[in-house]
Protein backbone atom coordinates (compact mmCIF):
# COMPACT_ATOMS: atom_id res chain seq x y z
CA UNK A 1 0.00 0.00 0.00
CA UNK A 2 2.80 2.35 0.99
CA UNK A 3 4.68 1.57 -2.20
CA UNK A 4 1.66 2.33 -4.40
CA UNK A 5 0.96 5.62 -2.60
CA UNK A 6 4.54 6.80 -2.95
CA UNK A 7 4.62 5.75 -6.59
CA UNK A 8 1.41 7.62 -7.36
CA UNK A 9 2.52 10.82 -5.60
CA UNK A 10 5.96 10.87 -7.18
CA UNK A 11 4.49 9.94 -10.57
CA UNK A 12 2.01 12.82 -10.27
CA UNK A 13 4.88 15.21 -9.41
CA UNK A 14 6.97 14.04 -12.36
CA UNK A 15 4.02 14.23 -14.78
CA UNK A 16 3.13 17.70 -13.46
CA UNK A 17 6.71 18.73 -14.07
CA UNK A 18 6.47 17.45 -17.64
CA UNK A 19 3.28 19.51 -18.16
CA UNK A 20 5.12 22.66 -17.06
CA UNK A 21 8.06 21.73 -19.29
CA UNK A 22 5.65 21.47 -22.21
CA UNK A 23 4.23 24.90 -21.29
CA UNK A 24 7.74 26.36 -21.21
CA UNK A 25 8.56 24.87 -24.61
CA UNK A 26 5.31 26.09 -26.18
CA UNK A 27 5.86 29.54 -24.68
CA UNK A 28 9.37 29.64 -26.06
CA UNK A 29 8.04 29.07 -29.55
CA UNK A 30 4.80 31.03 -29.42
CA UNK A 31 5.50 34.20 -27.41
CA UNK A 32 6.13 37.33 -29.45
CA UNK A 33 9.41 38.80 -28.15
CA UNK A 34 12.62 38.07 -26.28
CA UNK A 35 11.37 39.04 -22.82
CA UNK A 36 8.18 37.01 -22.80
CA UNK A 37 10.04 34.03 -24.21
CA UNK A 38 12.66 34.25 -21.46
CA UNK A 39 9.82 34.61 -18.94
CA UNK A 40 8.19 31.39 -20.07
CA UNK A 41 11.48 29.49 -20.29
CA UNK A 42 12.73 30.70 -16.91
CA UNK A 43 9.52 30.14 -14.97
CA UNK A 44 8.44 26.88 -16.56
CA UNK A 45 11.90 25.40 -16.57
CA UNK A 46 12.55 26.10 -12.89
CA UNK A 47 9.23 24.84 -11.56
CA UNK A 48 9.19 21.74 -13.75
CA UNK A 49 12.76 20.76 -12.90
CA UNK A 50 12.07 21.17 -9.20
CA UNK A 51 8.87 19.12 -9.44
CA UNK A 52 10.58 16.30 -11.35
CA UNK A 53 13.51 16.22 -8.93
CA UNK A 54 11.20 16.20 -5.90
CA UNK A 55 9.27 13.34 -7.49
CA UNK A 56 12.50 11.42 -7.96
CA UNK A 57 13.59 12.18 -4.38
CA UNK A 58 10.28 10.90 -3.07
CA UNK A 59 10.48 7.79 -5.23
CA UNK A 60 13.67 6.78 -3.42
CA UNK A 61 11.50 5.70 -0.50
CA UNK A 62 9.09 3.53 -2.51
CA UNK A 63 10.83 0.34 -1.41
CA UNK A 64 11.28 1.35 2.22
CA UNK A 65 9.13 -1.40 3.78
CA UNK A 66 10.74 -4.24 1.91
CA UNK A 67 11.63 -7.32 3.90
CA UNK A 68 13.87 -6.25 6.72
CA UNK A 69 14.87 -8.83 9.27
CA UNK A 70 15.62 -6.38 12.01
CA UNK A 71 15.12 -2.79 12.93
CA UNK A 72 18.79 -2.11 12.24
CA UNK A 73 18.50 -3.40 8.70
CA UNK A 74 15.46 -1.19 8.19
CA UNK A 75 17.37 1.88 9.34
CA UNK A 76 20.28 0.87 7.10
CA UNK A 77 17.94 0.92 4.08
CA UNK A 78 16.42 4.17 5.26
CA UNK A 79 19.83 5.83 5.59
CA UNK A 80 20.90 4.96 2.05
CA UNK A 81 17.61 6.15 0.56
CA UNK A 82 17.61 9.33 2.63
CA UNK A 83 21.13 10.17 1.45
CA UNK A 84 20.14 9.92 -2.22
CA UNK A 85 16.98 11.92 -1.56
CA UNK A 86 18.97 14.67 0.17
CA UNK A 87 21.40 14.84 -2.75
CA UNK A 88 18.54 15.15 -5.25
CA UNK A 89 16.89 17.82 -3.10
CA UNK A 90 20.19 19.71 -2.96
CA UNK A 91 20.24 19.75 -6.77
CA UNK A 92 16.72 21.18 -6.82
CA UNK A 93 17.72 23.91 -4.33
CA UNK A 94 20.69 24.79 -6.54
CA UNK A 95 18.43 25.03 -9.58
CA UNK A 96 15.93 27.14 -7.61
CA UNK A 97 18.78 29.60 -6.93
CA UNK A 98 20.59 29.62 -10.26
CA UNK A 99 17.91 29.27 -12.91
CA UNK A 100 16.01 32.50 -12.12
CA UNK A 101 19.33 34.32 -11.76
CA UNK A 102 20.52 33.24 -15.17
CA UNK A 103 17.16 34.25 -16.63
CA UNK A 104 17.53 37.65 -14.96
CA UNK A 105 21.08 38.06 -16.27
CA UNK A 106 19.97 37.19 -19.80
CA UNK A 107 17.07 39.65 -19.57
CA UNK A 108 19.36 42.41 -18.42
CA UNK A 109 21.88 41.65 -21.13
CA UNK A 110 19.07 41.86 -23.66
CA UNK A 111 17.88 45.19 -22.20
CA UNK A 112 21.42 46.62 -22.24
CA UNK A 113 21.76 45.44 -25.79
CA UNK A 114 18.67 47.45 -26.79
CA UNK A 115 16.08 44.73 -27.29
CA UNK A 116 12.68 46.37 -27.77
CA UNK A 117 9.91 44.88 -25.63
CA UNK A 118 6.64 43.91 -27.27
CA UNK A 119 4.00 46.56 -26.47
CA UNK A 120 0.31 47.27 -27.07
CA UNK A 121 1.22 49.34 -30.14
CA UNK A 122 3.04 46.35 -31.62
CA UNK A 123 -0.04 44.26 -31.01
CA UNK A 124 -2.30 46.85 -32.69
CA UNK A 125 0.08 47.05 -35.61
CA UNK A 126 0.09 43.29 -35.90
CA UNK A 127 -3.69 43.16 -35.83
CA UNK A 128 -3.96 45.89 -38.46
CA UNK A 129 -1.53 44.06 -40.66
CA UNK A 130 -3.38 40.78 -40.22
CA UNK A 131 -6.65 42.60 -40.89
CA UNK A 132 -5.25 44.04 -44.13
CA UNK A 133 -3.92 40.67 -45.18
CA UNK A 134 -7.23 38.93 -44.55
CA UNK A 135 -9.05 41.81 -46.27
CA UNK A 136 -6.71 41.45 -49.23
CA UNK A 137 -7.50 37.78 -49.46
Amino acid at each position, binding site marked *: MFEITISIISGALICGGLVFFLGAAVGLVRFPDFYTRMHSAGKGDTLSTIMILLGIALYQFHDLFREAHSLEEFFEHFKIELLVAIKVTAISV*LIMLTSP*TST*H*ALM*EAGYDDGMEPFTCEDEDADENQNGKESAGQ
Partner: protein
Amino acid sequence: MKGLALFAVAFTGALLLYATGDFPDWGSLDSPANGGELSTHYIKEVRKETEVPNIVTAVLADYRGFDTMFETVVVFVAGIAIIAVLRDFGNGSRGYPPALANNLPEEPDLIVTQTCNLVIPVLQIFALYVLAHGHHSPGGGFQGGVMLGASYILIALANGVEAAMKILSERKILLMAATGILIYSGTGLVCLLLGENFLDYHVLSRILPTDPIMARSHAMLFVETGVAFTVTAVMFSIYANLATRGTLKGGL
Protein backbone atom coordinates in the same frame (compact mmCIF):
# COMPACT_ATOMS: atom_id res chain seq x y z
CA MET B 1 43.98 22.90 -54.34
CA LYS B 2 40.42 22.14 -53.28
CA GLY B 3 40.46 18.97 -55.33
CA LEU B 4 43.67 17.89 -53.63
CA ALA B 5 42.19 18.54 -50.19
CA LEU B 6 39.05 16.63 -51.12
CA PHE B 7 41.19 13.75 -52.31
CA ALA B 8 43.15 13.73 -49.06
CA VAL B 9 39.98 13.75 -46.97
CA ALA B 10 38.32 11.07 -49.05
CA PHE B 11 41.43 8.91 -49.01
CA THR B 12 41.85 9.17 -45.21
CA GLY B 13 38.15 8.54 -44.70
CA ALA B 14 38.24 5.48 -46.93
CA LEU B 15 41.28 4.19 -45.07
CA LEU B 16 39.55 4.64 -41.72
CA LEU B 17 36.38 2.98 -42.97
CA TYR B 18 38.46 0.10 -44.31
CA ALA B 19 40.16 -0.24 -40.93
CA THR B 20 36.84 -0.48 -39.06
CA GLY B 21 36.43 -3.91 -40.62
CA ASP B 22 39.21 -5.13 -38.36
CA PHE B 23 37.47 -4.00 -35.18
CA PRO B 24 36.19 -6.71 -32.87
CA ASP B 25 32.41 -7.14 -32.71
CA TRP B 26 30.35 -5.21 -30.17
CA GLY B 27 30.64 -6.87 -26.77
CA SER B 28 32.82 -9.62 -28.15
CA LEU B 29 34.54 -11.58 -25.41
CA ASP B 30 37.66 -11.95 -27.54
CA SER B 31 38.19 -8.23 -28.02
CA PRO B 32 41.30 -6.90 -26.29
CA ALA B 33 39.21 -4.57 -24.16
CA ASN B 34 37.18 -7.43 -22.70
CA GLY B 35 39.35 -10.50 -22.80
CA GLY B 36 42.83 -9.08 -22.72
CA GLU B 37 45.21 -9.99 -19.96
CA LEU B 38 45.67 -6.37 -18.96
CA SER B 39 42.02 -5.42 -18.52
CA THR B 40 41.30 -8.65 -16.67
CA HIS B 41 44.16 -7.83 -14.38
CA TYR B 42 42.79 -4.33 -13.76
CA ILE B 43 39.30 -5.59 -13.00
CA LYS B 44 40.39 -8.41 -10.72
CA GLU B 45 43.40 -7.02 -8.93
CA VAL B 46 42.85 -3.26 -8.54
CA ARG B 47 41.19 -3.62 -5.14
CA LYS B 48 43.94 -5.91 -3.86
CA GLU B 49 46.81 -3.90 -5.23
CA THR B 50 45.73 -0.34 -4.53
CA GLU B 51 42.72 -0.37 -2.17
CA VAL B 52 40.92 1.95 -4.60
CA PRO B 53 37.30 0.99 -5.36
CA ASN B 54 37.11 3.13 -8.50
CA ILE B 55 39.01 1.25 -11.19
CA VAL B 56 39.00 4.23 -13.54
CA THR B 57 40.89 6.40 -11.06
CA ALA B 58 43.36 3.63 -10.32
CA VAL B 59 44.11 3.08 -14.00
CA LEU B 60 44.29 6.80 -14.71
CA ALA B 61 46.51 7.87 -11.85
CA ASP B 62 48.50 4.74 -11.06
CA TYR B 63 48.80 2.15 -13.82
CA ARG B 64 48.88 4.80 -16.52
CA GLY B 65 50.34 7.60 -14.46
CA PHE B 66 52.78 8.52 -17.19
CA ASP B 67 49.97 9.12 -19.66
CA THR B 68 48.07 11.31 -17.22
CA MET B 69 51.19 13.27 -16.32
CA PHE B 70 51.72 14.29 -19.90
CA GLU B 71 48.03 14.98 -20.32
CA THR B 72 48.46 17.51 -17.51
CA VAL B 73 51.47 18.90 -19.33
CA VAL B 74 49.31 19.22 -22.46
CA VAL B 75 46.78 21.25 -20.45
CA PHE B 76 49.61 23.44 -19.15
CA VAL B 77 51.04 23.96 -22.63
CA ALA B 78 47.59 24.83 -23.94
CA GLY B 79 47.28 27.49 -21.24
CA ILE B 80 50.69 28.91 -22.07
CA ALA B 81 49.85 28.89 -25.79
CA ILE B 82 46.59 30.76 -25.15
CA ILE B 83 48.48 33.41 -23.18
CA ALA B 84 51.16 33.62 -25.87
CA VAL B 85 48.64 34.07 -28.66
CA LEU B 86 46.02 36.27 -26.99
CA ARG B 87 47.73 38.23 -24.24
CA ASP B 88 47.96 41.93 -25.01
CA PHE B 89 50.67 43.78 -23.09
CA GLY B 90 49.38 47.29 -23.10
CA ASN B 91 49.84 48.84 -26.54
CA GLY B 92 46.16 48.15 -27.18
CA SER B 93 46.67 46.90 -30.71
CA ARG B 94 44.73 43.74 -29.97
CA GLY B 95 42.35 45.19 -27.37
CA TYR B 96 38.73 46.16 -27.46
CA PRO B 97 37.51 48.61 -30.04
CA PRO B 98 36.86 51.82 -28.03
CA ALA B 99 33.09 51.87 -28.64
CA LEU B 100 32.64 48.43 -27.07
CA ALA B 101 34.89 49.26 -24.11
CA ASN B 102 32.76 52.29 -23.20
CA ASN B 103 29.62 50.21 -23.43
CA LEU B 104 30.40 48.06 -20.39
CA PRO B 105 28.10 48.47 -17.38
CA GLU B 106 29.82 50.34 -14.53
CA GLU B 107 28.40 48.33 -11.68
CA PRO B 108 27.95 44.58 -11.36
CA ASP B 109 24.33 43.48 -11.10
CA LEU B 110 23.13 43.03 -7.50
CA ILE B 111 21.05 39.88 -8.01
CA VAL B 112 23.74 38.10 -9.99
CA THR B 113 26.45 39.07 -7.51
CA GLN B 114 24.45 37.91 -4.50
CA THR B 115 23.56 34.59 -6.09
CA CYS B 116 27.17 34.03 -7.03
CA ASN B 117 28.23 34.81 -3.46
CA LEU B 118 25.81 32.10 -2.33
CA VAL B 119 26.77 29.54 -4.95
CA ILE B 120 30.53 29.93 -5.20
CA PRO B 121 31.48 28.60 -1.73
CA VAL B 122 29.24 25.57 -2.25
CA LEU B 123 30.71 25.04 -5.69
CA GLN B 124 34.27 25.20 -4.42
CA ILE B 125 33.63 22.81 -1.56
CA PHE B 126 31.89 20.44 -3.94
CA ALA B 127 34.87 20.69 -6.30
CA LEU B 128 37.22 19.71 -3.48
CA TYR B 129 34.88 16.83 -2.63
CA VAL B 130 34.93 15.64 -6.25
CA LEU B 131 38.72 15.89 -6.23
CA ALA B 132 39.20 13.99 -2.98
CA HIS B 133 36.42 11.48 -3.55
CA GLY B 134 37.73 10.41 -6.95
CA HIS B 135 38.86 7.12 -5.44
CA HIS B 136 35.35 6.08 -4.55
CA SER B 137 33.05 7.72 -7.06
CA PRO B 138 33.35 9.33 -10.49
CA GLY B 139 35.60 12.33 -10.14
CA GLY B 140 39.23 13.21 -9.70
CA GLY B 141 41.69 15.90 -10.57
CA PHE B 142 40.41 16.94 -13.96
CA GLN B 143 36.77 17.16 -12.91
CA GLY B 144 37.48 18.85 -9.59
CA GLY B 145 39.89 21.24 -11.27
CA VAL B 146 37.37 22.20 -13.92
CA MET B 147 34.78 22.94 -11.23
CA LEU B 148 37.25 25.05 -9.24
CA GLY B 149 38.16 26.93 -12.41
CA ALA B 150 34.47 27.41 -13.13
CA SER B 151 33.99 29.00 -9.71
CA TYR B 152 36.61 31.63 -10.57
CA ILE B 153 35.00 32.12 -13.98
CA LEU B 154 31.72 32.69 -12.14
CA ILE B 155 33.36 35.42 -10.06
CA ALA B 156 34.65 36.97 -13.28
CA LEU B 157 31.21 36.77 -14.90
CA ALA B 158 29.46 38.37 -11.94
CA ASN B 159 31.96 41.04 -10.88
CA GLY B 160 34.12 41.52 -13.92
CA VAL B 161 37.44 39.96 -14.84
CA GLU B 162 39.41 42.54 -12.87
CA ALA B 163 37.70 41.59 -9.59
CA ALA B 164 38.52 37.94 -10.20
CA MET B 165 42.06 38.86 -11.18
CA LYS B 166 42.51 40.43 -7.74
CA ILE B 167 41.89 37.01 -6.22
CA LEU B 168 43.79 34.99 -8.78
CA SER B 169 46.28 37.23 -10.53
CA GLU B 170 48.13 36.25 -13.66
CA ARG B 171 51.27 35.65 -11.66
CA LYS B 172 49.39 33.30 -9.38
CA ILE B 173 47.82 31.53 -12.36
CA LEU B 174 51.18 30.73 -13.90
CA LEU B 175 52.62 29.74 -10.55
CA MET B 176 49.64 27.49 -9.85
CA ALA B 177 49.72 25.81 -13.24
CA ALA B 178 53.42 25.07 -12.91
CA THR B 179 53.02 23.94 -9.29
CA GLY B 180 50.49 21.35 -10.37
CA ILE B 181 52.92 19.71 -12.75
CA LEU B 182 55.65 20.01 -10.14
CA ILE B 183 53.48 18.15 -7.62
CA TYR B 184 52.74 15.42 -10.13
CA SER B 185 56.25 14.87 -11.42
CA GLY B 186 57.66 15.48 -7.92
CA THR B 187 55.65 12.53 -6.63
CA GLY B 188 57.21 10.47 -9.40
CA LEU B 189 60.65 11.81 -8.65
CA VAL B 190 60.38 10.93 -4.95
CA CYS B 191 59.66 7.34 -6.01
CA LEU B 192 62.75 7.48 -8.18
CA LEU B 193 64.87 8.83 -5.31
CA LEU B 194 63.64 6.04 -3.03
CA GLY B 195 65.06 3.53 -5.45
CA GLU B 196 62.07 2.45 -7.55
CA ASN B 197 60.70 3.31 -10.97
CA PHE B 198 59.31 6.74 -11.78
CA LEU B 199 55.69 6.98 -10.50
CA ASP B 200 55.93 3.59 -8.80
CA TYR B 201 54.00 4.73 -5.75
CA HIS B 202 54.18 1.71 -3.46
CA VAL B 203 57.70 2.66 -2.39
CA LEU B 204 56.28 5.84 -0.83
CA SER B 205 55.27 3.73 2.17
CA ARG B 206 58.80 4.30 3.45
CA ILE B 207 58.12 8.00 3.98
CA LEU B 208 54.35 7.85 4.51
CA PRO B 209 53.01 6.23 7.68
CA THR B 210 51.15 3.54 5.70
CA ASP B 211 51.70 0.15 4.12
CA PRO B 212 52.67 -0.11 0.41
CA ILE B 213 49.08 -0.73 -0.75
CA MET B 214 47.64 2.34 0.95
CA ALA B 215 50.64 4.34 -0.20
CA ARG B 216 49.50 3.81 -3.79
CA SER B 217 46.03 5.02 -2.85
CA HIS B 218 47.38 8.13 -1.14
CA ALA B 219 49.86 8.91 -3.91
CA MET B 220 46.93 8.96 -6.35
CA LEU B 221 45.42 11.76 -4.28
CA PHE B 222 48.71 13.69 -4.51
CA VAL B 223 48.92 13.47 -8.29
CA GLU B 224 45.22 14.25 -8.65
CA THR B 225 45.77 17.36 -6.55
CA GLY B 226 48.54 18.35 -8.95
CA VAL B 227 46.22 17.84 -11.91
CA ALA B 228 43.55 19.95 -10.20
CA PHE B 229 46.00 22.82 -9.63
CA THR B 230 46.98 22.95 -13.29
CA VAL B 231 43.46 22.54 -14.64
CA THR B 232 42.04 25.23 -12.33
CA ALA B 233 44.66 27.79 -13.31
CA VAL B 234 44.52 27.06 -17.03
CA MET B 235 40.71 27.07 -17.15
CA PHE B 236 40.52 30.50 -15.58
CA SER B 237 43.42 31.83 -17.63
CA ILE B 238 41.80 30.72 -20.89
CA TYR B 239 38.51 32.38 -19.92
CA ALA B 240 40.14 35.62 -18.78
CA ASN B 241 42.19 35.95 -21.95
CA LEU B 242 39.38 35.04 -24.31
CA ALA B 243 36.75 37.23 -22.63
CA THR B 244 38.89 40.36 -22.61
CA ARG B 245 40.75 39.79 -25.86
CA GLY B 246 43.99 39.51 -23.97
CA THR B 247 43.81 42.82 -22.08
CA LEU B 248 42.57 41.30 -18.80
CA LYS B 249 40.54 44.49 -18.34
CA GLY B 250 36.81 45.04 -18.64
CA GLY B 251 35.33 41.80 -19.82
CA LEU B 252 32.11 40.52 -21.24
